[in-house]
């Protein structure tokens, strides 16, 4: 039994920064969970609290059925893979893998067997006598993984282990990681700021912001039913389109367009008088002459990016952009974040590459009301219109 329980974990640094702010989480035995969020959101600090590398200021960390809050890292039986791999520079690959086992008094024959097994699993047989300096980034990453695997701990912690790899290698190692977890079945907590890793690797993912868990759910749930504006904006690339609207006379008024609420059924009553409307770029459909849609908006195209397989079309709505510090943080790293500088709400539509028209044209897009999200503009919390209808 090696699940992890976090109970109201708080970490405040001596300079007063509260990096982790009352986190409660239960991670099941053998589960692969991802902590994801923008830089500085507290995900690495939380990981280090689990590992014992940071003392928690308040709360408890439970591994298996043991409270390890005050237990030293060496006694927690956890292995960690670091962002920069942290291989011991004076030891060759074999000794790097063996070190943790040696420290724990593993018999020599057992150490040799585990090195052989880990090296085979990660394709390191030829590199065992090399020092880290003589390895490429990808090879170092694999050695760091092998070092963790050979230990056979009850929990793996991984702190952005793929962030120093190039894009192609990252895709491959990501697949290897998923496969390894399937083989080993060890509880794993993985930190990343890359939502693709969060979506593809995690059985569940926790989106963090300002030291708090915003939502802890399956990647599909994060995508389809975000709990608040932050999660909605952070998960998905390009980000969810957001615009402020008002509800009156049985319609939602957004950017000069009138979207009849009858399309939402009886539950439209739940909407307050002002609401933030959200729709993902991939859920907008282009409407051509004669196409009908219950909800439709029309605007001038400002930028069009042809990515080969698809086209991203950017267009403004005549309504102020939904802006908050949280959203700026959620968009950090977003390629199109610069477009947020516009005071108007900029919408993005992800359309098939077969689209012919270019920039400066008018575009008319349809919004499927079932795929729209609604948020309380004051709290940012999602307003649930119809439970259980969405889902990947």
């Amino acid at each position: 039994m090696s699940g992890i329980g976090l109970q109201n974990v708080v970490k405040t640094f001596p300079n007063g920064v509260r990096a982790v702010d009352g986190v409660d989480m239960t991670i099941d035995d053998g589960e692969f969970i991802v902590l994801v969020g923008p830089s500085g959101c507290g995900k690495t600090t939380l990981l280090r609290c689990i590992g014992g590398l940071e003392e928690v200021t308040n709360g408890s960390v439970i591994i298996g059925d043991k409270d390890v809050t005050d237990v030293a890292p060496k006694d927690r039986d956890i292995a960690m893979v670091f962002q920069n791999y942290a291989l011991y520079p004076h030891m060759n690959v074999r000794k790097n893998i063996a070190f943790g086992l040696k420290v724990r008094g593993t018999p020599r024959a057992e150490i040799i067997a585990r090195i052989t097994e880990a090296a085979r699993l990660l394709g390191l047989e030829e590199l065992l006598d090399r020092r880290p300096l003589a390895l490429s980034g990808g090879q170092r990453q694999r050695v760091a993984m092998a070092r963790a695997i050979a230990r056979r701990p009850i929990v793996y912690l991984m702190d952005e282990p793929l962030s120093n790899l190039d894009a192609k290698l990252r895709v491959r190692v990501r697949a290897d990681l998923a496969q390894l977890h399937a083989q080993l079945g060890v509880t794993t907590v993985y930190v990343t700021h890359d939502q693709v890793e969060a979506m593809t690797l995690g059985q569940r993912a926790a989106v963090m912001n300002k030291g708090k868990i915003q939502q802890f759910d399956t990647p599909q749930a994060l995508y389809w039913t975000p709990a608040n504006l932050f999660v909605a904006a952070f998960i998905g690339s390009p980000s969810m389109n957001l615009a402020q609207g008002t509800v009156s006379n049985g319609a939602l008024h957004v950017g000069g367009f009138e979207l009849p609420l009858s399309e939402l059924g009886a539950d439209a009553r739940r909407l307050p008088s002002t609401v933030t409307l959200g729709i993902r770029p991939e859920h907008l459909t282009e409407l051509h002459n004669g196409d009908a849609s219950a909800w439709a908006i029309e605007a001038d195209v400002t930028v069009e990016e042809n990515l080969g397989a698809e086209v991203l079309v950017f267009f403004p709505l005549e309504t102020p952009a939904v802006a908050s510090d949280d959203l700026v943080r959620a968009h950090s790293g977003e390629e199109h974040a610069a477009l947020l500088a516009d005071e108007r709400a900029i919408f993005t539509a992800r359309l098939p590459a077969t689209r012919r028209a270019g920039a400066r044209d008018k575009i008319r897009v349809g919004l499927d009301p079932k795929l729209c999200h609604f948020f309380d503009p004051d709290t940012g919390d999602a307003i649930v219109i119809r439970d259980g209808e969405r889902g990947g």
Partner: protein
Amino acid sequence: MTSFGRTADQRRKPWTFRRIARRGLLYAVLIILVVIFVLPLGWGVLASLREKNQGVLGPAIPHPIHWDNYRFAWSGIFPFAHYLKNTVFLSVIYTVPVVLTSALAGYGFARHRAKGRNVLFMFVLATTLVPFVITFIPQFVIFAHVHLVNTYWPWLLWGLGGVPFLIFLFRQFYANFPSELHDAAAMDGCGNLRIFLSIYLPNSGGVLAAGSIIMFTWVWGDYIFPALLLYDQQTTLGPKIASGYTSPTGTIAFVPITIAGAMLFTLPVLLLFFAMQKKLARGIVTTGLKG
């Protein structure tokens, strides 16, 4: 194109008057410095080859050359090898512990969050401001009381206490040591001492070499403490050479032989220094820079 993105021609600057003048000035300063450092050594070599009764003011170039002064210095008047052995022993029993304990203290100051850590570190540094002449007599009295005079124990005890300068050197080095290595070793099951011994120490080659040479050279060349605390057969070459090369009645000092003895005394540390010069330079240069 070179790796710096410029061609060889672009890198080869023309010899302008300004450049020649700057280069000339640089060489002039370097030559003056070399002369300042080498002149005493050169004078020593020449003076050690004069006739044994000639004083400090003998001819600059000895004629004839008395190589046998070195033979005399080695075995003619007192057994040089015996005192050399004492000096090596004393230097080693001081240098090894002082470097290790200073490294350990530097590691503690660099890596362990504890209340009052910085105040304590400032206190350690502040002790360097106390001139040794103030502690000199009290130390002698203490060692005399505990019957450690004319033994090598004081050096071992000093060594175990560490030296503020070295503690500072190691602290700066370890403060810039990648913290992930520390964390990785902690996760691998190491306690603090094992992390120090297994990870920090093996990766401290340069700064260890620098610290060792500085301490070894200091204790090797020390005159005051061996003269104060060690007598007769126990003493080291420093006091022995300074007082030992005289006529049997002690009335005539054989200056050239004394200088020959001093040259022999200098040779081992000079060779050690040259052998480890590269490591020493790297140790000092990378202190505080390694990231």
